[in-house]
């Protein structure tokens, strides 16, 4: 077994503001092995996207990585020079964004945007780069790639644009792809196709994939492991089947309960009360306690991420027992 593709240790990403420091990512540690798909789940503001951007070194100022290590194939890239990061970005670590309507530059043709990506990392001729681009488009299921290369983004549908973005990410056969909710803006059928293709690509090429989403049902069928984030911290992590079938953290359980389909028709979906806390000047203790039905005095101290079974960690003083959910519990 070689070193994991990515190993994040105690990552802290802070945004200084006038009112105080926003700890968007607060001590997050995880690993992704070669060919593994990690589903990173959380609400808006949980820090999941910031985690992704931290790995790429693309945090908008004044935000910055305040602590921790990001080991990419053993190299700590939080200390890498801007030049070294540029070499890694797009070549070894690629990213796919949420909104395909916004990720392609509207005034540049697809071929320009793909060829420049090839040539940013390798000295190849325009002709060779174009051939690579066409090949990448074909690999993500775009028919007539030569013609599509001559299009402008606005001439393509949303699904098509996201395929172009994915093809662009795949140009250099990266070791790691960070996908930030790439299917949320798409039709369900297109979403299914893209999920299937991404999974296949990772299996075939050994690329590690971090799939960031707020939608548990998407990662349930895609990921090998799930990591649930809440207010900048990991609250539960484990193999996908374990976390979905036997969630231990009340928050994870709430997320699963709010997915349609688990309940009889017409029954009201479960809703987690309250909202994600603001990340400024957080009080000590468990960050979920104000929304949690199981909270007590013990929850005023921050629980550690404890391993309940191999690979299954929970940050909770009162985890549910390791038994499957019954429908009545889901509704509770």
């Amino acid at each position, binding site marked *: 077994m070689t070193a994991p593709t990515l190993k994040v240790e105690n990552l802290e990403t802070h945004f200084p503001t006038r009112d105080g420091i926003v700890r968007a990512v607060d001590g997050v540690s995880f690993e992704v092995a070669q060919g593994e798909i990690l589903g990173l789940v959380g609400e808006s503001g949980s820090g999941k996207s910031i985690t992704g951007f931290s790995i790429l070194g693309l945090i908008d100022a004044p935000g910055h990585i305040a602590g921790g290590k990001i080991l990419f194939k053993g190299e700590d890239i939080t200390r890498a020079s801007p030049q070294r990061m540029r070499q890694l970005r797009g070549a070894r670590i690629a990213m796919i964004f949420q909104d395909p309507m*916004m990720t392609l530059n509207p005034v*540049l043709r697809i071929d320009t945007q793909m060829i420049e990506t090839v040539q*940013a990392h390798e000295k190849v001729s325009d002709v060779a780069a174009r051939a690579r681009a066409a090949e990448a488009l074909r690999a993500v299921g775009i028919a007539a790639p030569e013609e599509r290369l001559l299009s402008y983004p*606005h001439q393509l549908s949303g699904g098509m644009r996201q395929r172009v973005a994915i093809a662009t990410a795949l140009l250099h056969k990266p070791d790691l792809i960070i996908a930030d909710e790439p299917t949320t803006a798409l039709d369900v059928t297109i979403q299914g196709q893209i999920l299937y293709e991404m999974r296949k690509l990772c299996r075939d090429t050994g690329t590690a994939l971090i799939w960031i989403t707020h939608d548990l049902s998407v990662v349930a069928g895609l990921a090998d492991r799930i990591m649930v984030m809440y207010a900048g911290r990991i609250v539960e992590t484990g193999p996908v089947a374990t976390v979905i079938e036997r969630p231990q953290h009340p928050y994870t359980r709430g997320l699963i309960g709010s997915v349609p389909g688990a309940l009889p028709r017409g029954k009201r979906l479960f809703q987690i009360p309250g909202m994600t806390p603001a990340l400024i000047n957080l009080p000590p203790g468990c960050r979920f306690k104000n929304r949690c039905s199981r909270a007590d005095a013990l929850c005023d101290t921050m629980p550690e991420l404890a391993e309940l079974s191999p690979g299954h960690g929970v940050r909770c003083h009162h985890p549910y027992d390791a038994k499957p959910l019954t429908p009545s519990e889901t509704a509770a």
Partner: protein
Amino acid sequence: MLVFIIRRLMQAALVVAVMSVLVFVGIYLIGDPLAILVSPEATELDREEIARSLGLDRPVWEQYFTFLTAAVQGDFGKSFVFGQPSLGLILERMPATLELALTATIMAVVIGVPLGLYAGLRHETIGARAIMAGSVLGFSLPNFWVGLMLIMLFAVQFGWLPASGRGQTVEVLGIELSVFTANGWKHIILPAITLGLSKCALIIRLARATAREVMLMDYVKFARAKGLDEKRVIGVHILKNIMVPITTVTGLELGALIAFAVITETIFSWPGMGKLLIDSIIHLDRPVVVAYLIVVVLLLVAINLIVDILYSVLDPRVRLGGAK
């Protein structure tokens, strides 16, 4: 594209036609050319005789029609003052004005876009703040004052640059131009700075505002995520997006510069159309005023057409076909 151009040309023809009526009626109303043309000692009979020979005894609509028939053939009548065809007078002076306005505009863009881009991308640095403060100054200082100060400083105090005239010109493609001689450059630089300063300030502010907007776009972040270097992210991805609004504004401002270079031309005795217009208005030289206004309208229409075409080159989402 062709349909678009033809449609625009038809619109332009309409604009020019309406314009010609307005100009003609307006000029007709503001004074009697006989008062200037005929000496005060002339008898009433002489006056009528001259009025008849010039067609001034005819009703307005007939005069307008006569004017129009001649105008479409390029004949706007002879200048009362110079006794030469008025269109010829204007065309003779047009290169000087165009040259000045274009130089001013190019200077404004070449200086304004990089400064504005810098101020937008590094908006918290001292340099960016200094640029913005400077642009406020460039905006608010009156044109004539800037011109006079430049003359005081560079012509009077240091004696580096001449204060008036066009200097040496060379004929390029049958047009007398001064930007191709060193001496001509010396002459054009002060009036061009005077004319272009406020436009440069405008472009700085516009470039900064759009750059700040564009740099937050996902596609800029994606360009970085692809591993492109900053030179390419800024020089291609950001620059091409901010050039769309800048082209529009520059085009409109160029039209305004050509039409209203009057003050600068007067201060620097630049022998352009603007100075001719002022002189003609003072002397009630109708044919020249009318011809000037028509020429300016044609120029503005042409500039707008070019801007629209450039727009579609810069932004592929703009379709020149127009109506569906």
